[in-house]
């Protein structure tokens, strides 16, 4: 989590203004607490950028700017910052296999890299969409493995995200009939399922 720093001013407002200027944030984007300083005149606070607030403001302002009927509720759970998105336009995000949802999640993480320094990874979802997507991917992986085992012919998956490829690798890791491998480079990487060579 971001390190908290001390800021002092004649009043709380002045201390907050100093903190916002230094942290490049708006008042709503920082969390702070008063600090007792022995020789202190005025007000000293300990403040840091609040990733939840920055992300919440970014997403809601972006949705409003784009006239998208979307809302997000964010919570810090464990090691992640998870956001549940809902609203009439949510299907725009879950279309095309959820690519727009993945893109939004990627951007959310880059925004926090820039604004909040170190932060827990952001995970966005729309009503359990990712769970359903993972389940159908696992099923597709199992069916592909059956086909490969039966025919002895390797099968290549269409281009998928790194996360999706990882899911398939993991789903078939225990299947001793087949082996999986990623071929190619960058975002064109494709996953191949082939019969396991017998020793």
């Amino acid at each position, binding site marked *: 989590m971001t390190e908290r720093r001390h800021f002092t001013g004649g009043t709380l407002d002045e201390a907050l203004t100093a903190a916002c200027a230094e942290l490049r944030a708006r008042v709503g984007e920082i969390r702070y607490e008063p600090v007792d300083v022995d020789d202190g005149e005025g007000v000293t606070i300990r403040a840091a950028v609040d990733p939840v607030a920055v992300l919440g403001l*970014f997403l809601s*302002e*972006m949705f409003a*700017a*784009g*006239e*998208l009927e979307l809302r997000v509720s964010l919570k810090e759970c464990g090691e992640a910052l998870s956001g549940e998105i809902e609203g009439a*336009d949510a299907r*725009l*995000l879950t*279309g*095309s296999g959820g*690519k*727009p949802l*993945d*893109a*939004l999640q*990627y*951007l959310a993480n*880059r*925004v926090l890299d*820039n*604004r909040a320094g170190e932060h827990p990874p952001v995970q966005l979802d729309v009503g359990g969409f990712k769970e359903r997507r993972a389940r159908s991917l696992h099923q597709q992986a199992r069916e592909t493995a059956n086909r490969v085992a039966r025919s002895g012919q390797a099968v290549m998956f269409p281009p998928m995200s790194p996360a999706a490829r990882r899911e398939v690798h993991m789903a078939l890791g225990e299947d001793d009939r087949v082996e999986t491998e990623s071929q190619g480079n*960058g*975002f064109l990487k494709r996953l191949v399922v082939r019969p396991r060579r017998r020793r």
Partner: protein
Amino acid sequence: MSAMKDLLVEIAKALVDHPDEVQVTEVEGEQTTVLELRVRSDDLGKVIGRQGRTARAIRTLLAAAGMKVHKRFVLEILE
């Protein structure tokens, strides 16, 4: 200002170090609208990203949001 232009402005401003220097120009065509994004030169990397991933994510989002208004949007990042 159109909603798509505003959307791009919000995204770009949140990614860069100099939000005041973010500019978006909208060039409207019949089927496609070109959104020209200008940022300060040392912020270019922030909107393009490693291997162009950030730019690609922005394009994906613009395409999704564009479906609502049945239009295609093309992002051009200019120096």
